[in-house]
């Protein structure tokens, strides 16, 4: 079976015959050193902007805020804080035991933010997957005007998220078109389910087409003759979908779902601009940014927790759900059998 990238680039390369990777030999001796030189700039940049901040955030998360020492009255640097900054979030411990953070403070919001972040992720990614799959099945059919269809699914993708958020903010305004069409007077940026629904709808609008494109790429590698054979054997449409389409499209599908899941877990722009966190719609990322203004070290602990959550979800996907990311994307050293 071919890979997602294989399809796309094959199409792009406009019929140039792909090389047989097995037969291609490297021209150069000492490839290792050459590769190291070529790859170094990327790794250095990533180290400066990603690795250094991570290490520094983790070390800061175990540090106390600098401030006045109540005993001496002198300004002191923080020093080692142990897990105090983590207790603030995980146990809502503002200094005098578990659940001592008063309601409304940032410290009391960790579990709410985690809950709503996962709610957005599960609901939005599920909707996007189902819609994206449906779109992909339609787009997979042959018809005139494919270019128009492709361009119109790319429109939501091309609009910057900040603009998307403002656009839906307008649609969901009290006097806006959403309420007019539905004949309702819902406060979409108020309390309860409405602001959550607004965020999920806007996110689904923006990214379902993107899912469709990734799934479509997966559909296009399936050999039509497999379906013909199944039909000869008397398989029904549902059986063909379940036993051919689903398993064969699964690698592309899993990668699409993984990327969307990680994107939604770190969602910031859309809820920040659309609801501003109204009605408990503050995501983990929004909470970190809010915390930066009151204390760096606690913010570092929270961003470390966010990072661990995202990492854990990615790990579960790759390890247990079979999202084979590197092989999907690896240069074709080997193709999945």
């Amino acid at each position, binding site marked *: 079976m071919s890979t997602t*990238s*294989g399809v796309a*680039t094959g199409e*792009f390369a406009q019929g*140039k015959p792909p*090389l047989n990777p097995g037969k*291609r030999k*490297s*021209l150069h001796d000492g490839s*290792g050193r*050459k590769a190291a030189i070529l*790859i170094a*700039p990327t790794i250095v*940049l990533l180290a*400066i*902007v990603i690795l250094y901040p*991570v290490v520094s*955030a983790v070390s800061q998360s175990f540090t106390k805020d600098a401030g006045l020492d109540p005993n001496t009255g002198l300004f002191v640097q923080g020093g080692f804080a142990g897990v105090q900054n983590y207790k603030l979030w995980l146990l809502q411990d503002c200094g005098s035991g578990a659940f001592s953070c008063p309601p409304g403070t940032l410290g009391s919001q960790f579990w709410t933010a985690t809950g709503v972040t996962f709610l957005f992720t599960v609901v939005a990614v599920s909707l996007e997957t189902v819609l994206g799959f449906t*779109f992909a*099945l*339609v*787009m997979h*059919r*042959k018809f005139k005007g494919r270019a128009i269809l492709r*361009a*119109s*699914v790319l*429109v*939501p993708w*091309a609009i*910057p998220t*900040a*603009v998307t*958020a*403002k*656009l839906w903010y*307008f649609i969901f*305004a009290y*006097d806006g*078109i959403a309420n007019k069409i539905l004949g309702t007077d819902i406060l979409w940026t108020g309390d309860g389910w409405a602001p959550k629904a607004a965020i999920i709808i806007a996110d689904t609008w923006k*990214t379902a*087409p993107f899912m*469709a*494109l*990734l799934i479509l790429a997966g559909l296009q590698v399936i050999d*039509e003759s497999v379906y013909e054979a199944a*039909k000869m054997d008397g398989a029904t*449409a549902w059986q*063909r979908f379940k036993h051919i389409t689903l398993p064969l499209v699964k690698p592309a599908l899993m990668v699409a779902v993984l*990327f969307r899941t*990680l994107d939604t877990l770190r969602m*910031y722009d859309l809820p920040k601009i659309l609801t501003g966190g109204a009605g408990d719609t503050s995501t*983990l*990322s929004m909470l970190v940014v809010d915390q930066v203004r009151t204390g760096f070290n606690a*913010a570092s602990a929270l*961003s470390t927790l*966010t*990072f661990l959550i*995202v990492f854990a979800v990615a790990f579960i996907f790759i390890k247990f759900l079979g999202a084979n990311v*590197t092989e999907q994307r690896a240069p074709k050293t080997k193709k999945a059998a």
Partner: protein
Amino acid sequence: MATTSRSTSTHRGHTVTASGVEVVQRRNVPAAVLTYVGVVLICLWGLLPFYWMIVTSFRDVGFTFDTTPWPTHVTLENYATAFSTDRGNHFGRALLNSVLIGAVTTVVGLVVGVFTAYALARLEFKGKFYVLGIILGASMFPGVALVTPLFQLFTNIGWINTYQALIIPNISFILPLTVYTLTAFFTEMPWELEESARMDGCTPGQAFVKVILPLAAPGIFTTAILAFTAAWNEFLLASQLGGDKVQPVTVAIASFAGAQPHQEPYTAVMAAGTIVTVPLIIMVLVFQRRIVSGLTAGGVKS
């Protein structure tokens, strides 16, 4: 249910001839109708909200919440308001900032990415798997985890509200995207040509510049579009590490001030949104084939 019927009709609508060439049968009317209904619905899905933004951008402020499907009381005033600096908005400047940040990010990201992608696609070396893993890991990284340390670092070295403070993190965000997309393009290239060039006496560097780069130009161009779109989209770090001077359009639009406090200048924001989006939409219309292949090759969401 919908999926089932669609996949049925897909295969009813096509036959494979003996030569293996697919032909569309003209007779299957219900399936064709269903397809076109689906196509129309998908087009409406993508275009309607965008259309609503354009329509609103032409409405007179007093008619902001009109529901006619075309603009009534048409005015260009919202576009003037979007650019006016009377209310403390700097949209015009933000537009230039975004172009500058996007262009520098794209160029540097591509130059660095091309070398890495070449190495990954063309050279056999130990640890290739780990390099891919690191780059992939970077693309999965939550940007918010960088806010605190980068804010402190840039405060210490006096970089807050400077272009480099927005450009350098942006480059590392788009690098995974450029590396994956370019690696996918490079693996499909006819590398025998490079070998022939070497036989004819080119140095590896010459062979790369004279033979490979021209062949790779479409892939590089596609990657540039994706990278620029991603950089144009960045909001989180720009809103934290930037200031009025370097503010990109995403931040400017999010914080657009109205005539009075707490008054949302919807029509002006929709005009600003239209200005920011239309160049991208034109690009999408012109290069949609390439963008789709680039997206599905890279797979990394911008």
